[in-house]
């Protein structure tokens, strides 16, 4: 195990902490990065349409967004590779929008790792220390010591002199991370860091990324298009939709209380019906759905029910008083080990998904094209209005 003393925080961050010490506690001291109404358009097409967010210090933040939602643009704007058209970016309390990338103290881990192909693992990691314009480390012994500690921290010992073209994807990922962390940034941006890895490795790196972050005590902003990754990784999850932050919450809240039907759709675990509330029911294309669940205020009216809150019953089974019942024909099911996902078509052609956990019951066999009753408790539904 490397000594953690090697990861003393950078001087400027230390100074910031002391300055904004006791008198600011409880106000803004915990946000390391603040975005205020950040705008960016590419040849007239808006990519960021007024992003507001605050990232707390020493935390793992994941940024979830479908492709084209502007997440890479947001990351590049924060890092300084792209200039915002408007708005403010405050980092450790200072405006950084006009500061070049290398003076921001923000590390960036690229999706394709962007390792220096002509340098060895150790040389890649040492690059920032010895080549940075501000306060370069000229003593080769100090550089070597820091690199050695960092190689130990990310678990690359023994590969120091390997060419980066001769190591595996997971090892490249570690080099990319180590190369950034060794410069002691106050924050690290990760652009779909696990996207280039195979599924097995991805799951293992999730845990490692969290552990490494905890040891270094810096804020990670992890961009991903995968809802499971965002929920698993983030202490806080930001949902980016059409250039705006649609929701900022912890994983549990996000999953059970998405702020809008769109957020619910990204989470990929809700059946969503359009329509409108009328009286004591929600008027949807498949009929009237009795109200009784959580009502949430959002721009667009919608009715959402989680995949795993729905029961599949024979067509002749009646619903209890507190239940909502619709009918649908079975299409197919998908077995994923611990659960089975069954797909139904509703009368209006819409696909309805039901997730059944197999820990308590063996999978039932359903007949293709046969009609079934889909039933859920009124209180389990989310109604947006």
């Amino acid at each position, binding site marked *: 195990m490397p000594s953690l003393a090697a990861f003393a925080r950078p001087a400027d961050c230390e100074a910031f902490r002391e300055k904004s010490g006791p008198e600011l506690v409880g106000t803004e001291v915990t946000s390391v990065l603040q975005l205020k109404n950040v705008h960016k358009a590419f040849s007239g097409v808006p990519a960021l349409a007024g992003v507001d967010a605050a990232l707390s210090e020493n935390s793992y933040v994941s940024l979830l967004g479908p492709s084209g939602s502007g997440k890479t643009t947001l990351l590049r704007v924060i890092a300084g*590779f792209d200039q915002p058209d408007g708005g403010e970016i405050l980092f450790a309390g200072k405006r950084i929008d006009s500061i070049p990338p290398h*003076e921001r103290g*923000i590390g960036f881990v690229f999706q394709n790792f962007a390792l220096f192909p*002509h340098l060895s693992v150790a040389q890649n990691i040492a*690059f920032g220390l010895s080549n940075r314009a501000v306060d370069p480390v000229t003593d080769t012994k100090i550089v070597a010591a820091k690199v050695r500690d960092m190689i130990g921290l990310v678990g690359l010992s023994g590969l120091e002199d390997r060419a980066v073209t001769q190591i595996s994807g997971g090892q490249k990922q570690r080099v990319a991370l180590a*190369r950034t962390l060794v*410069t002691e940034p106050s924050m690290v941006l990760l652009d779909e860091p696990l996207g280039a890895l195979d599924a097995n490795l991805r799951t293992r790196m999730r845990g490692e990324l969290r552990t490494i972050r905890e040891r270094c005590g810096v804020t990670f902003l992890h961009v991903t298009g995968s809802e499971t990754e965002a929920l698993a990784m983030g202490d806080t999850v930001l949902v980016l939709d059409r250039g705006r932050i649609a929701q900022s919450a912890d994983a549990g809240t996000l999953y059970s209380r998405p702020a809008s039907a769109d957020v619910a759709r990204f989470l990929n675990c809700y059946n969503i019906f359009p329509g409108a509330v009328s009286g004591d029911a929600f008027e949807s294309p498949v009929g009237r759905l009795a109200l009784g669940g959580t009502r949430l205020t959002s721009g667009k009216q919608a009715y959402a029910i989680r995949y795993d809150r729905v029961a599949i019953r024979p067509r002749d089974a009646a619903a209890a008083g507190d239940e909502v019942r619709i009918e649908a024909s079975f299409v197919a099911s998908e077995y994923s080990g611990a659960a089975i996902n069954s797909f139904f078509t509703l009368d209006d052609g819409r696909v309805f998904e039901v997730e059944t956990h197999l820990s308590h019951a063996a999978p039932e066999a359903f007949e293709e094209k046969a009609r079934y009753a889909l039933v859920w408790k009124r209180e389990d539904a989310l109604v947006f209005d």
Partner: protein
Amino acid sequence: MTMAATHHDTSVETAAPPTRKQPDRTALLLAPGVLWMLLFLVAPILMMVYVSFWTQTTFKIEPTLTLKSWVAFFSSETYLGALWTTIRIWLIVLVSTLLVGYPAALFVGLFVKNKTLSTALLVLCVIPFWTSFLIRVLAWRPMLGKEGAINMILMKIGVITQPIEVLLFSELSVIIGMTQIYCVFMVGPIAFMLGRIDPSVIEAAQDLGAGFWRIFRTIILPLSMPGVVVGAIFVSVMVLGEFATSAALSGRKVNLLGNIIVTQVGSLKWAFAAVAGVVLTILMGAVVAALLRVVDLRKEL
């Protein structure tokens, strides 16, 4: 006999069916190239080495082996001077094509983000090659001459009062002409290598805190070295074998090994031309071998 033949065929087929066709095809595909090289490269080189030891008299050449031509070459100040001029001009042109070509390649290959535009710019570099070599060389005469464009413009704007005579029919004019003609062979390979650098690698270096010159020295330059070496090989091989540019632009004042060969062949001194040819071939081989030492091209390309 029919029986025997059939038996033979089947035994071959069962013994090694997958590898049977492979050697045939390899030999077939290689044959034209190998044959061509043997006939038109290896044989002439061997012939040249052989002829360089023949006995040369004023009017004829005999296949009696002698060292006379070699001794004459290495004891003549003219020929050693030509060898030295060739090396000097090659080095100067190599450096000047690199100095002019690298920034141009940097612009085309790295700073122009639009791939279509950078291809278009590279094509622009090649446009001078749409005219003949001789025209390109001779076009420098009205440019560099005593009453040429450059002297006239400089005199008009009052920078000089007397025309600069050294511009034409001098070593300088040969260097200017060669640099212009061969520069594109330097730009092309370098721009190609620079274009292959992943832009995020440079952004990563920026993000790690390095300024432009640091990034250039530690990332861009090393990654473009294979291009520099390939460009240098192109330029070297062409400049070392040059004779037309120096003949047209130096007024016969600059004699390269190429010019010596042309003159000797012209006066039917085959043995002497062969000696110069062997010296030139050895020189080119040494230069290419040295350049290949700089970068392991097999690894990089």
